[in-house]
């Protein structure tokens, strides 16, 4: 079961060759067996899952066709609201917070007959790239447990890589789905901004956040994406009119596909192992008949600063509601109103979160707004224009996901600048609101997975997924299990 593709498992469940209970309990057992190694799960919702198992099995038995992933278990990043199930953002601030409502994506999954079996570890409030900053501890990379799983959706990628769950949801604000996917050898999609409802996603940076699927291959990702995408009246920024229509294809050729290769992404600051693996993927595209066109990506040095200014500005406002009054952590020795605010927030938030709130408050404050925030918005507009022009020339752009493979736990935790520069290849996608898929493309000298990303024009997920699928039809990196990957 654990080595099957999710779509195959789903078919067995639909054909009643595997019961929903077998699937769900099999994975729950696996989580209980391995979670002390990976620490990918914050909450395991065993009872809730088992209740749902009965309901869904009855529907399947009565011949109801709920969806192509009906009966399949799934786990959700812990910044996505689940009614009655703790949603912590891996923060002391929300360590006991139980939402009263479901995120739209959770409603959609449950309507599709999927079973939510737990909530996944992450960087606190999705701020980080290593899943080391949450209060529930570090998530370990299943390929090498001394290394990070990436972040901020580290739990979402590690759980899939570690076969604790066939599918998961993550969120991507500046690379938070793609980078852990690259670090853990999984496949993930960061959808176009507005393709998936954000209602119920505990916001980090509202204009950048998107929820997306993580799986072991692009087909499973695409199937999950088809369930969560589409408009939502509760989210005005979710503008896509219809959901993605899933279909499979067995093509292996890419004649006529124009692939842009940003030359300057490979000149400095990138590990040789990463560079080699990504270039081998480029070769594969060429061999499949795609036209590879090199170009110079503009604005490279402005991407990370613009991203951090905008993301932190929005975060400083989004996280203000955690004030110790209505829910969440309240400092025990606060006596006055201002002490409630000050102490609850000082004690309830971790270092990185506080750093970003302070940075964000600073760039929005009067006298600095024009110098920082406004400039960042201008950069963002220029970047959007640049991508618009590029997509008149290319169908997709191929790029590394991160300059390195998974680093050692604790290695970068005290060096925020180094951490931030790790986002160099991913943040422009969020700033421009584009879709991107992260796919495994080999291993570095230490046997650690390397990923690359395909970036598409807005709402071109169909094309993006088709091209990714051709790549995976021709390669086998996505099927490499943990043990085989390691030297």
């Amino acid at each position, binding site marked *: 079961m654990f080595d099957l593709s999710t779509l195959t498992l789903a078919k067995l469940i639909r054909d009643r060759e595997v019961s929903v209970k077998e699937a769900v309990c099999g994975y729950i057992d696996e989580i209980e067996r391995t979670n002390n190694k990976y620490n990918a799960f914050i909450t395991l919702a065993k009872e809730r899952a088992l209740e749902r198992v009965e309901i869904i099995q009855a529907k399947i038995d009565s011949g109801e066709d709920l969806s192509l992933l009906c009966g399949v278990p799934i786990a959700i990043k812990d910044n996505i609201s689940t009614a009655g199930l703790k949603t912590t953002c891996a923060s002391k601030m929300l360590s006991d917070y139980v939402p009263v409502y479901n995120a739209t994506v959770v409603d959609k999954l449950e309507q599709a007959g999927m079973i939510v079996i737990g909530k996944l570890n992450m960087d606190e409030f999705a701020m980080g790239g290593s899943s080391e900053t949450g209060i529930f501890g570090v998530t370990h990379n299943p390929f090498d447990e001394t290394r990070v799983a990436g972040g901020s959706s580290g739990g979402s990628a590690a759980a899939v890589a570690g076969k604790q769950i066939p599918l998961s949801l993550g969120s991507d604000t500046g690379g938070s789905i793609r980078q852990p996917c690259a670090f853990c050898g999984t496949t993930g999609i960061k959808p176009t901004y507005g393709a998936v409802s954000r209602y119920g996603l505990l916001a980090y940076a509202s204009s950048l956040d998107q929820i997306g699927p993580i799986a072991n291959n692009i087909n499973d990702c695409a199937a999950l994406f088809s369930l969560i995408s589409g408009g939502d009246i509760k989210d005005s*920024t979710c503008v896509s009119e219809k959901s993605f229509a899933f279909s499979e294809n067995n093509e292996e050729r890419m004649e006529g596909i124009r692939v842009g290769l940003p030359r300057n992404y490979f000149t400095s600051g990138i590990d040789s192992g990463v560079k080699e693996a990504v270039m081998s993927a480029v070769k594969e595209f060429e061999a499949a008949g795609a036209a590879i066109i090199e170009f110079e990506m503009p604005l490279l040095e402005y991407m990370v600063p613009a991203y951090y200014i905008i993301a932190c500005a929005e975060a400083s406002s989004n996280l203000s509601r955690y004030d110790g009054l209505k829910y969440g952590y309240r400092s025990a020795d606060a006596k006055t109103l201002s002490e409630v605010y000050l102490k609850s927030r000082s004690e309830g938030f971790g270092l990185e979160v506080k750093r970003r709130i302070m940075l964000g408050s600073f760039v929005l404050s009067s006298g600095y707004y024009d110098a920082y925030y406004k400039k960042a918005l201008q950069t963002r507009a220029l970047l959007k224009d640049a991508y618009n022009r590029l997509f008149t020339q290319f169908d997709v752009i191929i790029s590394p996901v991160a300059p390195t493979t998974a680093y050692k736990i604790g290695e970068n935790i005290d060096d925020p600048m180094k951490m931030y520069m790790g986002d160099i290849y991913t943040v422009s996608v969020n700033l421009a609101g584009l879709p991107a898929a992260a796919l495994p493309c080999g291993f570095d000298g230490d046997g650690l997975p390397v990923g690359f990303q395909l970036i598409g024009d807005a709402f071109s997920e169909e094309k993006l997924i088709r091209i990714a699928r051709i790549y995976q039809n021709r390669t086998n990196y996505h099927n490499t299990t943990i043990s085989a990957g390691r030297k």
Partner: protein
Amino acid sequence: MKWETVVGLEVHAELSTKSKIFCACTTEFGGEPNSHVCPVCSGMPGTLPKLNRRVVEYAVRTGLALGGKITVNSKFDRKNYFYPDLPKAYQVSQLYAPICRDAGMEIEVNGNKKVIGIREIHMEEDAGKLIHDARNNRTQMDFNRCGVPLIEIVSEPDFRSGEEVLAYLEKLRETLLYLGVCDCKMQEGSLRADVNLSVRREGEELGTRTEMKNLNSFKAIGRAIEYETERQIKILEWGGKVTQETRRWDDDKGESFGMRSKENAQDYRYFPEPDLLPLYIDDEWLQRIKDSIPELAHGKRERYQRDFGISEKEALVLTEHKNISDLFEAVSAKSGEPLEAAHLLTGEIMYLMNNANITPEFLAVDAGKLSVLINLVISGKINRNAYKETLAAVFDADVDPDEYIAKQGLKMVSDTNIVGDAVKAVLAENTEALADYRSGKEKAFGFLVGQVMKKLGGTGNPELVRKALKDSLSV
């Protein structure tokens, strides 16, 4: 040199849409604390706003009625500050592209007309309320008002006196009521005004201003302006400096107190609200809103005079408050007697309202019953006395006019025999008055008419009574 007061106003009007600005909760006033809330308006993590288009329509309607320029590419911004009544710790408002700019309103004070500039009108969400429980010294939060839509109407500093401010507020209230966008109940906080005031020697530069809050009635606004003007003049005449600050008006004490000064003023860190798309108002939508603007007071005033032949004075009274003109229009339509309806509302009803101390916004009389009464008096079924009496009963106790008239025996007596008998009896009983009349005292006739009416329980047909009396006396 004379001192001059310079005032600018920020008026907050709660829009009377059915649901809140960003969720489906009701905007109804009151209710059990926290009974009109949902995850969105209580700011639960992960929720998102969804703009109520009706709010935009009401704001645009107001902007157009006040002659403003509508911003067709408008957007929302976040105003960030911490306070327990603000569950998201930011208020969604409009700073960079308010829905309307450059509006204005003409006012008239002591016969002098003047236009007050309105710099902008913007949309925003209201905050909740803190309820202090003195018994256990706790403050509790009620989020019912959170997310109730507001427009803020920001004037230029064009006022030079409290009278001008009050004239403006009266007219603004009238306009909002006629537009149907706000119920303007100051006691319930649906209309609130902050006063920005400074003083200067005539012709000099603007002085340092203060902002006064917590003004809960027009009367309080008038008093507060007077108080603040004197306070600032006193400071300046003693060689002091006015501090730029926010002051809280205490209407019971009749004075204001400094709350926070400019030095510790908040930095609201405004930035564009990323959870809402920019708001675009296309031509078609704008036209539909234009078409939805109802007839305003001055239009009604002219129409009443033109179409119904109502006097200017009465037309003015009828249109002073939308509740009155609504009632007038309903009664005239139902009774088919606009002139009589106008007399009724500007006369007897005003009198009853004054006696009962009821202001127009709380007037609730059944238009159907009033028109029944009008038809009864005009068709001669009841006389004016009975009309007034029944009217008072309808006004006070909402009685059914027909039932009341029957029960009280108020139907007009037009039977010549009954009237004749009454005349006979009165003449027999009042020989003195009779003698007076005969000796040429015309006044005695009136007295005798009164006596006959009294005999008939006030229900006699007055013409018939006069005629019968005259006839008897001339015999």
